[in-house]
């Protein structure tokens, strides 16, 4: 026991020493602090890491160009766990302790909603890459929150696009919807898809829910095998898609799977998901310079364990776009101090981002076209583009 006590004392001391010896910010005069709130622990750490990496890449590129209006951008990364109260603490910390005026994040809508309220209260610009829930930019009374923006489509648009594609391009008459009730993103897409698909003359033959931590979908798949729908709408993230499509293949289910931008990841199991389609912000074979440059820069900065270049997923892309929107608006506004000017600049922003040409509507939601990508065993291919 004694040795244990000594050891633990040593560990605590070394923790404190490490903490003290950490690399602090250089005390340069022209610094612009920008906070990145991302769920680095909690239920979805991988989304947080992608978001952080995407945003950091944008910051690095701007700094390499000489910063924004001559200011060097100093990123402050905080762990917000995709849960309201750590997100609120993180937000309060960056705003009150660090004096940050611009925040990129959070990933999950349920964390972005409370921090956007703080943003409204304290005049801090919050720009989320990936929070798709409508309530992120609109408050309970239906008013647009003045300082909150986002870089992604809202649920309604992707659901509409998915339904349009299913009925018009795939000629689907029947659909089966799989959704995670606890995930606002999935739920939102699924509801909008259902609404639009039915309005376009299709029938929803079944609707089954699962939970995010499930790994066995065979019960739901048994029902799908019985119902034989034309399409299965599965608007979840790639981890669930990998599991479901693989098990579906093994059960011999031939219905086409259809999803949203959550599918976009280098970790998508293309062999299992082959034959499926998903709505996305851009296509990787898009020849636009923004896309090509982004893919090259991301791959050069971030490597997989085996040394190959990492391919950004939707979260990294949107975080990158969110950061770029912010810095472009600052350049337009010509200030990094005046939050209101930056906010006005953001409202009128026109930017050729990786995820398409972005303008914002009155509710601070981006207006941009969606790409439909087809998954084949060789990779993801561009299928169609559907404008809003």
């Amino acid at each position, binding site marked *: 026991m004694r040795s244990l006590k000594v050891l633990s004392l040593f560990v605590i001391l070394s923790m404190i020493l490490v903490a003290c010896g950490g690399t602090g910010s250089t005390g340069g005069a022209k610094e612009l602090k920008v906070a990145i709130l991302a769920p680095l622990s909690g239920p979805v750490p991988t989304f947080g890491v992608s978001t952080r990496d995407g945003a950091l890449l944008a910051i690095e590129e701007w700094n390499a160009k000489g910063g924004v209006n001559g200011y060097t951008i100093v990123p402050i990364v905080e762990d917000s766990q995709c849960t309201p109260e750590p997100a609120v603490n993180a937000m309060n910390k960056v705003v009150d302790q660090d004096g940050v005026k611009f925040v990129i994040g959070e990933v999950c809508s349920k964390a972005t909603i409370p921090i956007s309220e703080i943003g409204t209260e304290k005049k801090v610009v919050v720009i989320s890459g990936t929070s798709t829930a409508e309530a992120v930019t609109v408050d309970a009374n239906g008013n647009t929150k003045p300082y909150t923006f986002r870089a992604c489509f809202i649920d309604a648009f992707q659901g509409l696009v998915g339904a349009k594609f299913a009925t018009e391009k795939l000629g689907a008459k029947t659909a089966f919807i799989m959704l995670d009730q606890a995930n606002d993103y999935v739920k939102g897409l699924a509801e909008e898809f259902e609404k639009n698909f039915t309005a376009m003359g299709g029938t929803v033959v079944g609707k089954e829910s699962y939970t995010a931590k499930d790994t*066995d979908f065979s019960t739901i798949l048994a029902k799908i095998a019985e119902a034989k729908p034309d399409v299965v709408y599965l608007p979840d993230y790639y981890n669930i898609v*990998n599991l479901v499509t693989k098990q579906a293949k093994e059960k011999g289910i031939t219905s086409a799977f259809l999803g949203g931008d959550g599918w976009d990841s280098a970790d998508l199991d293309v062999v299992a998901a082959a034959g499926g389609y998903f709505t996305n912000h851009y296509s990787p074979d898009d020849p636009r310079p923004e896309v090509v440059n982004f893919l090259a820069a991301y791959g050069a900065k971030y490597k997989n364990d085996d040394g190959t270049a990492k391919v950004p997923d939707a979260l990294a892309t949107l975080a990158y776009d969110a950061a770029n929107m912010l810095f472009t608006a600052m350049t337009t506004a010509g200030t990094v101090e005046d939050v209101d000017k930056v906010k006005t600049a953001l409202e009128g922003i026109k930017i050729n981002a990786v995820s398409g040409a972005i303008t914002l509507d009155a509710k601070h939601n981006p207006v941009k076209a969606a790409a439909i990508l087809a998954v084949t065993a060789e990779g993801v291919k561009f299928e169609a583009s559907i404008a809003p």
Partner: protein
Amino acid sequence: MQQVSTPSQTTLPLVKPHTRLAWVGQLFFIVLGLAVVYILGKNLISNPTLFANIFISGLQLGFVYAMIALGYTMVYGIVKLINFAHGDVFMVGAFVSFFAVTRFNLHQWPLAVFPSIPPMVGVVIGSISVIILSMLICIMLAVTIERVAYKPLRDAPRIAALITAIGVSFFLEYFGALNFVFSPRFIPYERPFEVVAWYIKGGIHQVVPGTQPPDGSITFSNILLIIMLASVLVQIFLQFLVKRTKIGVAMRAASYDKQAARLMGIDVDSVISFTFAIGAAFAGLGGVLYAIAYSSIWSQLGILPGLKAFVAAVLGGIGSIPGAFVGALIMGQAESMTMGYISTPMRDAVAFTILIIVLLIRPTGIFGEPEKEKA
């Protein structure tokens, strides 16, 4: 929490057993039971193949839970500790096999060393060696955890060990999520062998990839057979180990009364370590089979199966090896039947309701030994 210092028999009720108004409670159970029978019966008649398919998926779930539940039940039986880190040992097992397969191609060594053996045998030997490697690493991990985190707390209040178990569990999850360890990603798992599925309809046919089996067919895969086989073998092995070997006798003695066991010359500490090792070995095996079955792994994969398996162990009677097995199978069926016929979100509610009802009728679970605790 209180436990008597000497094992006493079940305390006899001082007053005569409760009898009055008993029919109200019985009526409640009967109504509940009738509802369940009605739902299941109606669906069985209306669509027997769907029922069979749901039953099979419940079977697969149940056998996976059984593998993990064994570790919980053995550790609890002997140290009365809910080892929350067990699910994470399971996760490590899955990851070890992942690295062994994708990085080192361990599953192909027989074919690389002896190119002349038939590929089938090579794959079997290769897969078994991957499993053995995972089991060994899990054993090492579990014994280390036991030595570092639990052993110093043997004499401390029991809750302290529980909190350290939660701590170890968090640590493994989030340390595993660091980029240079397992990374926080959801990793598609490369199987050491291919999955073959069959369907039953007028005989057993193999499913051709890309075509849907005809209507009214019952499908199953080789994974299910492997998991069932492994689970049953483990069960038999453990029964043999606990009932017929010297260490098994020592384990039973230690779980009954540690002080007396110590007086009889049993090295209780090493028996406990051995128990942790056995539990971890099967968690490792379970981890590999789980990863092969569902082929997607990440650092928090152990939480939920771990919890479910623990509930299954409690349901079956914690401390009892056949109990863990039976409890896990019941849990698997309860979950998949609820998913199939009621609604997925109510799955946990149903599972826990069954648990509470079983515990109310048999306070120590289905196969549980009479309570050694004071009531």
